[in-house]
């Protein structure tokens, strides 16, 4: 009975400590997440300012030179949109490659995954004595 009391005490103290520790971690991780958001909102504010200036330029308030980059949407120039598009595609590709080994036997886009015919053909080439 003494041991059971000891076990119950351990359970209360142990789970209490584990929950308290992880609650603290949760708060810290949340704060770190906020740090991530702050610079991006500052950047947005900066970008908004830039967009305002661009709009001003478009409306002819300021004399813009002919070589000024063309603004398509949200104050972004063609070059910026192209850069964002490349970054998004690259990021998606990296995420897909990171996820692939855990989810599939063969990475999407690999020759083996892309075509069983190719895989079969290669098998025949490397093992010509086997019949398909």
């Amino acid at each position: 009975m003494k041991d059971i009391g000891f076990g119950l005490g351990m359970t209360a103290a142990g789970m209490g400590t584990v929950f308290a520790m992880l609650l603290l971690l949760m708060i810290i991780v949340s704060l770190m997440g906020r740090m991530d958001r702050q610079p991006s909102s500052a950047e947005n504010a900066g970008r908004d300012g830039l967009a305002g200036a661009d709009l001003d330029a478009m409306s002819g308030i300021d004399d813009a030179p002919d070589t000024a980059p063309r603004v398509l949407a949200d104050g972004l120039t063609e070059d910026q949109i192209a850069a964002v598009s490349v970054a998004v595609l690259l990021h998606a590709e990296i995420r897909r490659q990171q996820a692939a080994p855990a989810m599939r036997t063969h990475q999407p886009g690999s020759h083996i995954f892309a075509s069983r015919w190719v895989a079969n053909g290669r098998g025949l080439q490397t093992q010509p004595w086997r019949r398909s």
Partner: protein
Amino acid sequence: MSPDTLNSMLAGVQAVTWQSLVMLTVGCLLIALAVVKEYEPLLLLPIGAGCILANLPLSPLADEGGMLDILYNIGVGNELFPLLIFIGIGAMTDFGPLLENPRMVLLGAAGQLGIFLTLILALALGFSRPEAASIGVIGAIDGPTSIYVSGILAPDLLGPITVAAYSYMSLVRIIMPPIMRLLTTKRERAIRMPYSQRVISKRTRVLFPVVVTIVVGILVPFATPLIGMLMLGNLLRESGVVERLTQAASNELANVVTLFLGLAIGSTMVGEDFIKASTLFILGLGLIAFCLDTAAGVMFGKLLNLFSGGKFNPLIGAAGISAFPMAARVVQQEAQREDYDNFLLMHAMGANAAGQVASVVAGGVLLALMGAG
């Protein structure tokens, strides 16, 4: 041929005991599970091989100064191997889903309840306090943590505890689903949770392991070796500047240490010490610990479901254990059984990553409460 010569030639046959025969069968069974069923083959195969090598009659490998004895002394007796494995695990683990959704951290805590409830059961069955704590830690569903804690508290039980921990880790897909279905309704399992991916900066990814190590190290010093090595591996990965070390930690180091650890653990499974009623109790209690962890996680998920007004899928709670990433995959499979288009994987991965940290913290807390040094 003199009788002495004949005796020495047949010494091996004469030294065969029924215990060694049973353990040779157990070793073959472990290898069969690894090869045929592919249950944790990286660990069960070397453990099975170590078990066979240690139980062969008059085996010089397991004697003092033999290879298996040396491996045990250099890596298991002083808890070095589990810590080295933690560097590899850290280098392979992406804590991104946890950083994207910090609330999932609490699910990791709920998934550790089985450790303490099993400790009570073990005490009720007559195990000593250090032994009961070592058996309870099987509920962390974390092989290296189980080895580390039991190596300190009850080295005599290291063999059965390790076998139980790794065996049940490999049976996640079989053990968890019935409990999850039993404790949830069809409607709860079909709850969809939208996932909005948040960009995690490199600064946050690098800061996370450093901050966690410092905070946990200060508050639970007993967990410092475990959390320190786990987060060191993760820091290597996230820093992005030591690609070679990251590769070495997650491949060469982890592979070599896994082989040595498996052989050393297998060598502890000597018939005379292993074939006891207590071994069966340990295997049974380990299974109970796993079931309790899963149940506690799901029940905590149901609690969150209640507080969130029915928006939280309680299945995710079951992923708050350390079996990474199998537990998260099981949650996804179970959710898809009810609703094929339901995608809970990223939420579950967050809870699973939290379980990884929580199991290490729980191991440290257990050592602290037991006053181990």
